[in-house]
């Protein structure tokens, strides 16, 4: 297995506030990597740096052996932002079509990908409706479908399951696992729900702009002698100080 994402001594500040401090990280191909931590810890910023929509102040990020930012990489990364970046005056289908057309897919490919992505998040019946009448959960699902539209090698999902009902959440997770196992995709997700963290292959616990602990869920629990990841997080936070 190769390395999909490599982060090398990356720091980032917004004004006087330092959001990320000297982050070093390697994410292997074909795994689900979770960034866990409270809101404001810097998860979203880290994710945006990897996607390439913001530049780090210092350090370098390499994705699929290409230094970020690289225009070719945008095709390989499917990004789902934390805020639903959707066009509310358009229908779900029009949103999907619009983003699909930015990747120069053929008409046939476009149709297939839209059908697949919409089916995955169970939005087929609502595709003809405007996004402005969608519920919060439906908007999240549409955002997820858009992230999958160009069949990217890497999925970067910022809080993908917020506002999605439990049944569908299970469905989404099963699909993420299938994408990893059958299509060898690398998936990066951020979450602050610890039971979701359990489902990741590897976890980076983020607090105050640094990664305070990392490892597989089992490793982490063993290392800190903890019953749950919640406990790991608390103990790791304490030892960090």
């Amino acid at each position, binding site marked *: 297995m190769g390395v999909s994402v490599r982060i090398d001594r990356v720091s980032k500040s917004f004004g006087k506030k330092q959001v990320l401090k000297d982050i070093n990280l390697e994410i292997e191909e074909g795994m689900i990597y979770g960034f866990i931590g409270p809101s404001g810890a810097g998860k979203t910023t880290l994710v945006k740096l990897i*996607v*390439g*929509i*913001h*530049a780090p102040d210092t350090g370098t990020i390499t994705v699929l052996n290409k230094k970020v*930012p690289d*225009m*070719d990489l*945008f*095709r390989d*990364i499917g*990004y789902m*932002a934390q*805020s*639903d*970046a*959707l*066009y*509310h*005056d*358009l229908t779900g289908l*029009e949103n999907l079509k*619009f*983003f699909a*057309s*930015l*990747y*120069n897919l053929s008409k046939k490919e476009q149709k297939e990908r839209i059908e697949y992505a919409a089916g995955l998040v169970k939005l087929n019946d609502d595709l003809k409706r405007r996004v402005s009448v969608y519920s919060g959960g439906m908007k999240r699902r549409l955002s997820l479908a858009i992230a999958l539209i160009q069949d990217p090698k890497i999925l970067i999902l910022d809080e993908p399951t917020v506002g999605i009902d439990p049944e569908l959440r299970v469905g989404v997770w099963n699909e993420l696992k299938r994408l990893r196992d059958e299509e060898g995709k690398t998936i990066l997700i951020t979450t602050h729900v610890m039971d979701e963290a359990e489902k990741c292959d590897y976890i980076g616990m983020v607090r105050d702009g640094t990664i305070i602990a990392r490892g597989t869920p089992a490793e982490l629990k063993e290392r800190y002698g903890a019953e749950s990841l919640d406990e790991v997080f608390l103990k790791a936070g304490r030892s960090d100080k």
Partner: protein
Amino acid sequence: MRTAAIIKRICIEMMRDKRSMALLFIAPVFILTLMYFFFNGEPTDPRLGVVHIEDSLVQILEEQEMEVIPFEKGDKDTVLAEDLDALLVYENGAYKLILENSDPSLANTINLKVNQSIAAQIRAKLAGQLGINLEMDENLVVKEYIYGDADSGYFDILGTIFVGFFVFFFVFLLSGISLLKERTSGTLERLMATPVRRWELLTAYLAGYGVFAVIQTLIVVTYSVTVLDVVLVGSIGHVIIINLLLAFVALTIGMFLSTFASSEFQMVQFIPVVVIPQILFVGIIPLEWMADWLQVFAKFMPVHYAANALKEVMYKGEGLHAITGDLLALVVFIVVFIILNLLSLRRYRRG
């Protein structure tokens, strides 16, 4: 083609936003129509009360287009009670004019007319005593007009100027708010995570909103010329070129300023700062009357150049050669703001 996809999206969004469409196409027509009636209205005759005024003078006053109402006696209270604009009293061998003066320009006019009438009456009396005919020939002075004609009204000049101003104002508002919506909803950032290049994005915005600016320009210009009868001596093609360039200036300025707003309200706050001052420099008040440092300001006002060019073409009937400088100035504005927009998009990513 990514640019085409973005243009298509902008068009769909715009067509669905009925209010914005109304703002863009109906609002300028509505305001221009109001202005037309406002400036072309026939003023009503001022009401002048008179006390102890000879009939011969009353006759002259009435010829001066004033409604003359005689009173036995009168003072300030009469003016207010009878809703008069002025009261002319003759007592102890002298005239006294009481002016209501809630509208100073009307008061000035009445003052002037009354003085002329009294002078005319004295002249007529003298002529009568000397036995000579002092009838003035109306056509003693023959008038020739270089631009326009005897019927040219205030609205002919103002109409041409405001056609440009409205194009600027509404396109500015539309592009500013639309871009702001893209920023606050996160879609602009999301676009930055796709292979779209910054110049593709900018081209698409210019073309997408440009389409609507073109339609607006066509509607406003056609309506002003055909329905409102604004003079158009020069070519309508030139008028459209001027307005289009101005629309693109508004588009690029609106897009750029949306970077500095974090809400729709903050975007609206730019109107008194960026848009309103432009009206002052369009030529309603001649530039030559302004202090030198103010004239320098005009050089930074895109609407100033457009209004100048519109006046040359619509009112004076000049061709391209007369407006090349103004058009060039507009192009400079566009280029500068396109560069600024490209730079501001860099805060997301390069390329």
